[in-house]
Structure formats: C-alpha cells, structure tokens
C-alpha cells in the first residue's frame, strides 16, 4: 500500500448541470487529483450559504473551492455577481473568525473542464499548504 502524504482537505461546491459533470470527466479519464478533495453538488453556485463555508473550515477543511458556472449559468446572468458576493461575505465571516480569507477560491468550470479542474485543485493545494 502506498504511503500517505499530508494533503490539504478541500471542499468543492459544484453545480449539478455544469461543473459537476466536468469533475466527473476528470474521473472518467482517470486524470488524478488529491483524494482529499470532497465535492458537494448544488443547483447553482449562487445558492451557497456563507455559513456552510465557515462550517467546513471550522470542521477541519483547509479550503473551500467554488466550481461555478460563470456566464454559462442557466438560472441567472448575474450568477457571477451573486457568487462573488457570497465569497465576499464568506471572507468577512472568515476574518471575523481569524481564518485566512485565502482559504476560499472560485473558478468557472464547465462540463468538459477535466484538466482545468485538476490544475485548480493542485494549485489550491499548494496555496493552502503555504498558509500557516
């Protein structure tokens, strides 16, 4: 059995119709990423409650990544705006709780974005490993 390296735990919020299928693609094509990445899929990234982000970090996740639909969102053209506001509010809560606001990150992931997702995970892991 392989030796287990220490890897930052990342919670990903994905979207049912667009970014989650992209994450599935990475698996299908066996493009490996850190097994400390856990995904919760929602209808839309604009529905993420900042309290969930805070809860995740308090429970021991090192970071939260939002795999948003960006301009592909079918619910609202203003989705990127709403999601940004959620990140800002989460960062405000994080600062209030002495948590480094770099622990939350967002990128648009589409339904065929296997490689970009995996790259985001490795970059974010690097960033999280560097945070004290």
């Amino acid at each position: 059995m392989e030796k287990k390296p220490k890897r930052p735990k990342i919670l990903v919020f994905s979207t049912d119709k667009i970014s989650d299928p992209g994450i599935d693609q990475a698996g299908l094509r066996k493009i490996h990423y850190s097994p400390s990445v856990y995904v919760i899929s929602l209808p839309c990234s604009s529905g993420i409650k900042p309290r969930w982000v805070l809860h995740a970090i308090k429970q021991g996740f090192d970071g939260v990544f939002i795999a948003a639909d960006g301009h592909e969102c079918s619910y609202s053209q203003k989705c990127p705006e709403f999601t940004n506001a959620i990140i800002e509010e989460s960062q405000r809560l994080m600062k209030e709780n002495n948590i480094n606001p770099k622990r939350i990150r967002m990128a648009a992931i589409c339904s065929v974005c296997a490689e970009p997702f995996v790259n985001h995970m490795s970059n974010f892991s690097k960033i999280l490993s560097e945070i004290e």
Partner: protein
Amino acid sequence: MEEKLKKQRIGVYICHCGGNISDYVDVTQVKDLVKNEEGVIVSKNVMFACADSNQKEMVKDIQDGKLDAIVVASCSPKLHLHTFRNVAVRGGINAYNYTQVNIREQCSWAHSDTPAEATEKAIGLIRAGIIKVSNSEALETIEVSSTRAVVVIGAGVSGMRAAIDLAKMGNLVYLVEKEGKPGGNISRWGDLFISGKKGNDIVDALTRQIKEQSNVTLFTDAAINKVSGSLGNFNVEVKIGTEILNLKAGAILVATGFDSYRPADGMFGYNQFPSVTTLPEFKEWIDKNQGEKLVFNNRNIKSITYIYCVGMRETKGTNKYCSRVCCTSAIHNSIQVHEKFKDINVYHIYRDIRTYGKQEILFERSSKNGDIFLKYDEKLPPFVEQIGGKIMVKVKDELTRNQEFEFETDLVVLVTGMVPRHDSLELAGKLKIPVGNDKFFNEIHPKLRPVETVINGVFLGGSCQGPKNISESVQSSLAAAVKINALTKNPKIQLEPIIARVNFETCVWCGKCAEVCEYDAIHPLEMYGKTVASVNEATCKGCGICAPICPVDAIDIAQYSNAEIEGMIDGFMQLVELNIEGKIETTEEQGSSAGMNDLPQIWRRISASLEVAAKTIPALATELDLNTEMITYHLMTMNKYSLVEAEGLDDNDEYYFYKLKKL
C-alpha cells in the same frame, strides 16, 4: 452542530460496478465500517447496483426490513438517480428519501493511483450520504393541471411550421404575429439556398396549411402585452389595435426570429456613399430584378465587392459570434448575380469562408464563376472611400502576406449577419426568460436541454435563440413542438419539488429574496398576523439564489437544507480507522487498445475486441469469458459516455451489434 438524526432504518448499498469501483476501493471494508453508522441497519456490497436482480433485492429489503431511507454508493447520479428513486418508490418509501453517492467518477476512478486513500474517501462520501438521507424530507412531486393550448409568438417560418405540427398533434394553437402578415424575414426574399425555393412560395404554402387547420388561429398586428401564470396555465394578454385578448395556454413557444445587423453610418461608407449597401438590402433587390444591365441606385454596375463579417466576430465588440448564415447567403447572392446579369466581376473580401455542410457546393460554384477571393484580418479591415464619384477599396490580403490591393468597384455589399431583435429584451422581461451574452434567448443547455428555457413551459424555436438557416430554424422549432406536446397531452403535469421553502417563524418580510428572484416566485403573504415571504411552487426553479440573501437565514432549498449540507461536511470529516493491511483484490490488467489507457480495464478489453469488428453482447460475453449481464452493464455505461454505439441488428433481429465510436 447537534442535529437529531431523523431516519433510523437506512439501507446502504455499495456497488462493485464489476471492478470499476472494487478494483480501487476496498468495498468490503467500506461495507463493514458503514454498518456501524448511526441509523444504518442494512449495509451490502452488490456487483451491479443498477442490475434488475439487485433492484428487486433492494425493493425486498425496503419492504422486509421496513427501511425508511436508502443510500446507493455507485456511479455519478447523472446516470442512475432516477433508477434508484424508482426503486425507493417501488419499495414503498418516498423518492426523495434516497441519496446517491458518487464513488466511481469522483472516487475510484479519480484516485485509482491511491487505493487506500480512495477507500478512506469513499467512507467519508458515504457517511455524508447517510447523514444527508437521514435529514432528508419526504417530498411530493408538484402536480399542476394543464390546458391543451399553446401560444406561439412569431409567425416566421419557425413559428408557422411548429404551429401546424402542434395543431396536428391535437393542441389548440394561437399564433401571434406582430406584423400585418405572416412569414417573417423569408417573406422578403425570392430564391433561397439551398433548395432554390422562393421565400414567398414557402410562406404561401405554410399559410394555406394554417388555414386548413381548424385548431390554429393566426392573429396579425398583434402584440404580447403581458404574460402571467406558469406551466400548464399561462395567461397571455394580446393587444390587437385597441382590443385586448386573454389567451389561456399550457405552454408558450417563442419564435420571434432575428434582426439584420445595421452598420453605423460611415462604416465602410454605409449611408455615406450611395454605392454601399448591405446584403439583406441587395438580396431584396436582386430577387426582383433581372436583365441585360445591372443598374442599382441609378448606377451601371460592372463589379461588386462583398465585405464579409461586418459587425460580426468582433473580438472587442458585443457580437463575438459568427452569424453562420451570411457566408453562404453572400456566395448564393453572387451566384444569383452571375445568373441574372452578364459580365459582372465579383470580389469577396472575407475573413473565413463558412459554407459548412452541403452549402460547400455553392462555394465551389462561385469559385468556378471566376470570382476573386481576398482574405483580411480583423485587425486590418478593408478601407472603402469615394474619390471623385468612384468607389475605391483597399485591402491587405493575408494569402499573399498582407500585400495591399487597391481597386475600383461599382458596388460594395456589406455582408451583415443576424443579431437579436431590437425588442427582444422587452419580451424576455415579460416571459422572464434569460438572454445570453450575445443577447439571443438562452436555452438551458445547448447539448443536454436544447430548446427549453429555465422557465417551465416556455420553449424556443428558430433564430430567436441564435443565427440559423431555415432548415436549422425549423428543426429547432419542431423539436420544441414535440417537447411541448409531451407536456400538454397530459391533463396533469408533474414538477420537481426541489424548490425554496420559507421558515414563516423567522421571516420578517424584508423583501430581499423577492428582489433577487428573477422568476417572480416570491410574494408577500399575510400569515399568523404578520407578513411573510411565500414561494410559488409552480414558478420557483430551485436555483437557491434567494437563500444566501436572507438576512435571518429563513430560506432553504428542499434537499439542500443547512442540516443536510452541514451534515455532509461533518460526514466527510469524521476520522476513518482503516485496516490498511487489507489487500484490494484487483482483476488482472489486460493489454490496452488505442487511446483507452485511461479507461477501466474491462472497457479496454471490450474496446480491443470491438476494434477488430462490431459485436453483439452474447458474442462479446463468449469471447471475453464474462457473463452477458456484466457485458450489458459495461456496454450501456460505455454507451452513455459515447465510447461505443449500436449499429444494426443481428440476423435474428435479436441483438444489436456494437462498434467503437471515434474518440
């Protein structure tokens, strides 16, 4: 967070997926650990969770063990969510007291390089699923009654064609046209590519068919005033002159078409020099004229220069897209010129020629006509000027290393593309349908759910969704017609109950949720002596945008409550004590076939075999020494991922042959 678990008799099924999962995840250990989770009374390994035999066993477990919820840990929910929801229902529990956990695409395959960690993650994922399902509520599908009538907005070729088919399928159809007569853009034109038919003839034929169809009513000079209601029961207020009509419909088809791009004054000399026109203007003219000499705007024309992509494919501007119809239309137009008038020199100044599919024949014809093609770069557009009554064109031709050509021409035709209608945002507002960055109406997903909008019951047909030629426009409007009929033919329509719910105790009616809801699904309601937010079940999309906005956290989306999501997070984080000595039994690796190295090994074996020849399921089973059930499930999954495709039946008309699809 101390949440009381609600479900106490949970069944958990952990799938091998015939090695796809169990080759990397120690499913036996997972099953044993999961058995000890609170509320779990059944924990089983299954070879194929989706197999009929297993579904029957699950139904029996639910009934015999009086299970109150189930978790299936297998493939992505995109593949089998509905399969297991049905199993739950057949067993006698609510479809929404079921959770699917993705331990294949997002675990065993993604982490096939680190099996111990994949196993640990699988346990976390399943624990999260158990907590989610134990907090899940039984939800009832929302049922709405429906009127078997359809309002089609726009009587262009798309709307007319769909109206006829909808009527033939048994719907009452109201076809609402803004202009004084039906036909839309094509009624302005004569010869059309690629059939050579005339626009007017097509419109006349469709108008006749509409008249013959007693259940279609065409309203002309009619404007959509107001739309209310929702799927099954829309109220569409139509204004004709001073009269207001109230139409009731189960669904709405939007087929409002497009506008042609209008160049700004002075752009390539448009509206500045009399010898500069646009393609739609010139097409209208050429369709009506023929003779010895081409005289346009009182000028004798011996040479014509078409400038392509005007107002389209702008890297910096708003119209970033390609209008796809204009290349073919311009080339078709130049062929008409040669057919109708003698000795005209034609220059095409293009960026790319996009005469895709069968339209390529036209490009070939125009090349044979001796036309001259010069290619320009967006950054170095051609320059048009009038010097002493002569029109001069300067262009740097990419094909000859940007060599500059300057020549005189008698007429410049600006090849303008299709743009969203000037009034489309107004209609989008009335119907609450979104528009894309290009400002055309947006379908939910171009591949997964074309012609549908996020508003249940509102569909898109034709070029209002984006540039299309006639055949593509009609294809999309007929697709929408069939989807609409599938809804309206049932007197009752079922809707997903995954929508917003407001906690009336904590809501203080600040109205913030109603402000952000783009579907007008939230309205104030008097209750318990105060005003609260109330959600319209039929119009709420369950997007969740309102939930984080609420300052007192009074809104949840069904299936995504705080207890469910935060419970999942807790489940991911619980410590896992793995027996890492446990060796995972892997099925032996087989030689790989082209391009399939990163796919599961059974798939590689199947692919290698299909690479030689197309085969049926029994033939594959014999060759690979596996049972037919195993082959069936793998082939079906490969089919879903577009790796294989069926190709004709065998001699006994019993089994399909399967072949590899090109990756």
